[in-house]
């Protein structure tokens, strides 16, 4: 079915909607008003707060015969959840579609509604009063009659803008049923996001407050403790000259900037501490001090960490929540604050080697798929490439396996031999040989991956199985490495999104999606039942992406109250912080 304009869309009505709301950071939002514009008739409907709170259901049908549209609609569906309304079954989110079709372009101003309107040359007065109106709404009232009218007018201006934007978007991009279907699937995910954002992750708020109250002392204690090994800090500050001295005495080579100064960015430190494990504590300390601003962690009054998941924010379509506000940020030790409440449990469930599964399945490389299905793709690569005998195992050939793991994970990111060697302790020649073996063993995968990268560098679009796209924009400077890895990351993101949709719709309480994992919460006496359900959902989602008969296995970690979740990468730092807290 082809669509020539929005008039051809198969819906009796099309509702553009927008809520205004307020609320503290990580707390649940309180609706102020709602504006709806039915696009076919042009009719406007406006509802103030007192009326909204009495409505048991949305004012119009949310069935499949009706389309709902909004801009960054997870906000709207969050209020739907708050009000106990059924979520629409057909959602067209103009933000997700604008992001999809412009992915790979550099857009000044990002992907705001204003920018989307500008992109389509829509006339609008939005923006002129935005700051003043936002501030007025955020006061939380009470508002005078005049102010209420102002707020309603402001709310309506968004749906008026959508009335211009939506038809132009559909005409330009939504040519057929399949394309519309992809948009609706992304809309479905925005509804899932709203539910997950509402759920949040349970945090030990009492411990968090203690850490916040004593953080300055803990920071100094951390520095004193960790610096015993390095002697780099002075009065709580990292001294570059002392660090240079340390590197010299330890004979550790270090990348430098063109100016000759040491490269001290996080990525460089991260790579170096992999090659030189004696740097790990220093790296953890720097991450903790630089990025961990405890007061920024978004925890509501009810002890839940809630953040905007920022869906479709990255080029691969993955979520990109704030690293300082999200409990699953880079300071892995902080995850020790995750603690289920009384009578409850959480389960961390992640797909096994998801990206390898995606690489093998999407490329059609049966040799790689065989490696994945063996359960240990790194050992399988070692055997397939002739580095280990057929009966080799993790126990009998550990060092070979470790070397192969570096390469198997690194090549998909387009890492060079130099990069892999530096990050793993391998010799460069060794890394080169392993990379070559990878190319020879998985010829079909490389032909597919390099074909995609070449096409993308040529300026052609790439897309996932559900239509998330990327296309290098004019004036951009695309890297081959980006496009080599994009299909794996982006299709893996599709898998996660689909699992989130199915899980939230099945009534499971998903606290957070984390790259290739989901955090599930349930009463302790039902956690196993919910895990089984989620496991089946994740399996089904993997088959939908990988293809019929292909599945991604999962690993499961369960935490029952009163235990807390622990990420093993942060265990050492957690123990140190707790010890320092004890002494405060």
């Amino acid at each position, binding site marked *: *079915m082809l669509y020539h304009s929005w*008039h*051809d*869309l*198969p*819906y*009796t009505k099309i509702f553009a909607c927008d809520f205004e709301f307020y609320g503290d950071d990580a707390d649940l939002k309180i609706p102020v008003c709602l504006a709806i514009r039915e696009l076919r008739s042009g009719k406007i409907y406006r509802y103030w707060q007192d009326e909204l709170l009495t409505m048991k259901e949305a004012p119009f049908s949310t069935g*499949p*015969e009706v389309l709902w549209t909004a801009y960054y609609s997870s906000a709207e569906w969050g209020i739907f959840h708050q009000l106990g309304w059924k979520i629409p*079954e*057909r959602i067209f989110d103009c933000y997700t579609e604008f992001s999809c079709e412009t992915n790979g372009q550099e857009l000044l101003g990002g992907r705001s509604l204003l920018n989307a309107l500008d992109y389509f040359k829509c006339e609008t007065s939005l923006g002129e009063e935005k700051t003043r109106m936002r501030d007025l709404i955020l006061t939380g009232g009470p508002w005078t009659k005049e102010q209420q009218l102002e707020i309603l007018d402001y709310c309506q201006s968004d749906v008026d803008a959508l009335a211009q934007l939506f038809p132009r978007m559909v005409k330009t991009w939504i040519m057929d*049923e*399949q394309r*519309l*279907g*992809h948009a*609706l*699937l992304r*809309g*479905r995910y925005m509804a899932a996001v709203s539910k997950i954002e509402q759920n949040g992750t349970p945090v030990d708020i009492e411990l968090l407050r203690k850490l916040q109250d004593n953080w300055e002392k803990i920071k100094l204690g951390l520095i004193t403790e960790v610096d015993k090994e390095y002697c780099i800090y002075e009065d709580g500050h990292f001294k570059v000259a002392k660090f240079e001295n340390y590197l010299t005495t330890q004979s550790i080579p270090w990348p430098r900037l063109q100016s000759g100064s040491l490269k001290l960015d996080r990525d460089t430190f991260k790579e170096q501490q992999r090659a030189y494990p004696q740097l790990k504590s220093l790296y953890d300390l720097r991450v903790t001090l630089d990025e961990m601003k405890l007061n920024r962690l978004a925890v509501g009054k009810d002890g839940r960490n809630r953040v905007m998941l920022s869906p479709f924010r990255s080029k691969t379509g993955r979520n990109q929540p704030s690293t300082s506000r999200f409990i699953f940020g880079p300071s892995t030790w902080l995850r020790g604050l995750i603690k289920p409440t009384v009578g409850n449990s959480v389960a961390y469930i992640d797909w096994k080697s998801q990206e390898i599964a995606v690489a093998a399945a*999407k490329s059609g490389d049966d040799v790689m798929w065989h490696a994945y299905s063996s359960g240990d793709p790194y050992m399988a690569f070692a055997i397939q490439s*002739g580095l280990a005998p057929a009966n080799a195992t993790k126990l009998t050939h550990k060092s070979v396996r470790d070397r192969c793991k570096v390469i198997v994970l690194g090549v998909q990111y387009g890492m060079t031999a130099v990069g892999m060697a530096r990050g793993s302790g391998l010799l460069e020649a060794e890394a080169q040989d392993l990379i*070559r073996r990878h190319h*020879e063993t998985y010829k079909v995968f490389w032909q*597919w991956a*390099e*074909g*995609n*990268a*070449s*096409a*993308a560098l*040529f300026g*052609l*679009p*790439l*897309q*996932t*199985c*559900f*239509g998330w796209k990327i296309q290098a924009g004019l004036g951009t400077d695309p890297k081959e490495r980006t496009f080599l890895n994009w*299909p794996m990351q982006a299709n893996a993101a599709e898998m996660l999104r*689909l699992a989130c949709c199915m899980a939230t719709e099945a009534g499971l309480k998903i606290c957070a999606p984390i790259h290739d994992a989901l955090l599930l919460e349930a009463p302790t006496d039902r956690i196993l039942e919910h895990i089984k359900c989620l496991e089946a959902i994740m399996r089904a989602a993997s088959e*939908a992406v990988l293809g019929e008969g292909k599945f991604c296995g999962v690993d499961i970690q369960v935490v029952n109250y009163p235990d807390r979740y622990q990420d093993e990468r942060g265990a050492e730092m957690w123990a140190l912080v707790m010890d320092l807290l004890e002494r405060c």
Partner: protein
Amino acid sequence: MNQHNPNSRGPNPFDPKSLSVRHTGGENFAVKKVHTVIPVRKPSPKEWVRVHPSEEYQIFVAVFEDKENGITYIATPEIATEFPAEFKFVGLRLAVNRQGSPFFWKHPPLDPDGRDNLWNASHREAIARAQSDWVKMGSNRNLGAYECQIAPNLKAEPEWPDLDLQQLLEIAFRGRLISTRDHILLQQLRGEV
């Protein structure tokens, strides 16, 4: 409802399998490697190489080696016959290394009078082995011959350029074909320039 088809309900986002797209985008984007340089040489002692087994990729030619500049010229049979002192006959076999770079493996031909030496014999032996195995050839002065190592566990088959011998020779000897008496090289050799 769709004014063209009032019964159409549109796509169902709760049935993702019906929305699945198989191709990523690069599947039909054919990229062909273009060889602009094909060296004429022996393999280096550190290099693992394979030789194309087909007779269609071997030839005997007359060459002049400008050792000072490291350039090998090829002459037509007529020129080689007219200036026998300047040219020597060598065999060329298409070979490829582990990096996938093709080259012509230059080797001495069999002496028509049956005279031979260990260097030439071991050289040809290495080429013969390289047709089926990855080999590394290095010289052993004590032995007075080339030594050949093979890598029996290396099963990967080489990728050969998609060109015929004529095309490969044109690339290898572009601008270095001597087909007339007036070629600058011959003039130099005759002391005319």
